[in-house]
């Protein structure tokens, strides 16, 4: 019997075959913390080792993406502690403005076949490039950093076979929202998700990362794509072609379940408040004419170049609705610069968007773009839990960048498809 992608990556690492249900104790290639989870992680390292210590400093990365530039004195203090830890241990540090940890991992560090952990639940994003990447708590991440290894229960795998061609106005975000709608927010609890089928060849890395970033919203340990030509193109784009290797699941691998999804039948989807699993078709939501106060484009889920580009094409030559704040947070400095070069930033800005630095932005609900009582935000982020944007009496709808952009123009939740009919795409 063959191996699933999750089994294969862990088996490659260990040098012997492991199967679903086995315990894998293995070396970790990269471990990350961000500024919201880093200080607790380093407290635990001190508790464990008696001092600031990392087994492999070059495999540990701190990213200041949630709280910078600090809007509260406590955040500044936390940043100070994290910088000091980096100086003392020699680990990697990405400063305020460099971008979101998950995007930096994929641009700069992770290779297909790597084992990656992070004190952030969206660490699974990097599984889009066929790495065993998963989110953990601060204690587990502290162990991975201090000892250079971690244990995993090898997960069973749920396979998603994607067929057909995406219709105009429908994107990777709509695919993952459809999957959450299909299986539920705990539908893949403790499992690996694995994507295959003819339609994945058409999905760019930007699109794949959108899908894998939301594994946690299905309860999964991670969601994996194979490493193929597109993975190679991505690594080449970032000057790391030598890091590429092909990885495919075995044809006779054993899956817990297999879902067949015809993406040509999808329409734009929206997660209504207050859970990502509360998914409705745009045709239904648009009828309600929900008044929107803020649109937020960005995050590890939808802050990539393609996301900014599709939004820019929709808003170009138009103006954002009155009384609406349209916030754009590019996912990394590389993305920001590419978007500047290609004129994407200008189109967004001329339409009335507020362009911010490369960071998580409002998504963690800690300092940027928070909402007042009764306000509505349409966000391209991955979560809409009550209070997620700082106020339990506000409402968050999750959509693709295209739906978000159409909404920014109309001021109510809107279908993006009418904006794409004139061959703008």
């Amino acid at each position, binding site marked *: 019997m063959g191996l699933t992608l999750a089994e294969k990556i862990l088996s490659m690492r260990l040098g012997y075959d492991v199967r679903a249900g086995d315990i894998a104790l293995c070396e970790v290639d990269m471990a990350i913390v961000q500024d919201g*989870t880093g200080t607790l992680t380093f407290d635990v390292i001190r508790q464990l080792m008696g001092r600031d210590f990392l087994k492999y400093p070059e495999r540990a990365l701190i990213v200041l993406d949630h709280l910078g530039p600090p809007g509260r004195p*406590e955040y500044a203090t936390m940043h100070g502690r994290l910088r000091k830890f980096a100086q003392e241990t020699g680990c990697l540090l990405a400063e305020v403005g460099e971008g979101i940890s998950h995007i930096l991992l994929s641009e700069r560090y992770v290779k297909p076949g790597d084992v990656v952990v992070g*004190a952030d*639940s969206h660490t699974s994003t990097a599984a889009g490039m066929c790495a065993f990447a998963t989110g953990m708590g*601060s204690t587990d991440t502290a162990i991975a950093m201090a000892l250079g290894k971690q244990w995993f229960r090898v997960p069973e795998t749920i396979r998603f076979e994607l067929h057909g061609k995406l219709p105009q106005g429908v994107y990777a975000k709509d695919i993952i929202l459809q999957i959450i709608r299909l299986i539920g927010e*705990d539908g893949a609890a403790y499992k690996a998700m694995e994507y295959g089928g003819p339609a994945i060849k058409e999905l760019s890395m930007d699109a794949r990362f959108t899908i894998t970033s939301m594994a*946690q919203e299905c309860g999964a340990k991670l969601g994996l794509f194979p490493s193929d030509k597109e993975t190679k193109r991505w690594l080449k784009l970032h000057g790391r072609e030598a890091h590429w290797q092909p990885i495919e699941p075995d044809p006779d691998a054993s899956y817990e379940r297999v879902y067949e999804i015809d993406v040509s039948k999808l329409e734009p989807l929206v997660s209504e408040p207050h859970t990502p699993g509360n998914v409705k078709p745009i045709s239904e939501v648009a009828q309600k004419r929900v008044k929107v106060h803020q649109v937020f484009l960005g995050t590890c889920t939808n802050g990539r170049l393609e996301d900014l580009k599709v939004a820019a094409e929709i808003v170009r030559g138009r103006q954002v609705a009155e009384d609406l704040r349209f916030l754009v947070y590019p996912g990394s400095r590389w993305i920001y610069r590419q978007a500047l070069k290609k004129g994407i930033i200008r189109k967004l800005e001329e339409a009335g968007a507020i362009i911010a630095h490369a960071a998580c932005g409002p998504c963690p609900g800690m300092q940027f773009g928070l909402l007042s009582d009764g306000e509505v935000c349409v966000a391209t982020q991955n*979560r809409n839990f009550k*209070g997620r944007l700082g106020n339990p009496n506000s409402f968050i709808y999750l959509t693709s960048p295209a739906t978000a952009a159409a909404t920014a123009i109309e001021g109510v939740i809107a279908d993006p498809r009418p904006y794409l009919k004139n061959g703008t795409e």
Partner: protein
Amino acid sequence: MIIRGRAWKFGDYVSTDLIAPGRYANLRDNLNEFVKHVLEDADPKFAPAALERKEAYIVVAGRNFGQGSSREHAARLIKLSGVPIVLAKSFARIFYRNCFNIGLPALTTDTDKIDHGDELEIDLEQGVIHNKTKGTQLPAGRIPPIMMQILSEGGIIEYIKRHGDLVFEKS
């Protein structure tokens, strides 16, 4: 180990955002202050009652408790508020590991059979929940052997210190 306390009921899909809201991120290095807001967005009455310490409350929740963000502060705040154990129909995976890592037991059971305010007595080794108020016994889901080992030594840090490394007995 026998654990006693009174049930405090919560619903399905309680996320770590509801347990440890992001708007209190400024208190993440000050858990003794942060604990005053534990579970605030799920039930604002919980934290003040738990912190009075008149009795131990057991968090009794529905499906996928602790979903969402990995923030370990969520599990730590629940423990710090005096909760000796968390019961739920199911747990989100990161939260589940966080609980055992810090020595807070988390047990699955059919929590529909428990009402708010019921007096509970839990036998962890036997995996049985005695509902003293109702005079009933509920079977609990099995705790994986690795998690039981970690818990019995007071959490993963104590476990590693005692064994000198991250090693497991062959099971």
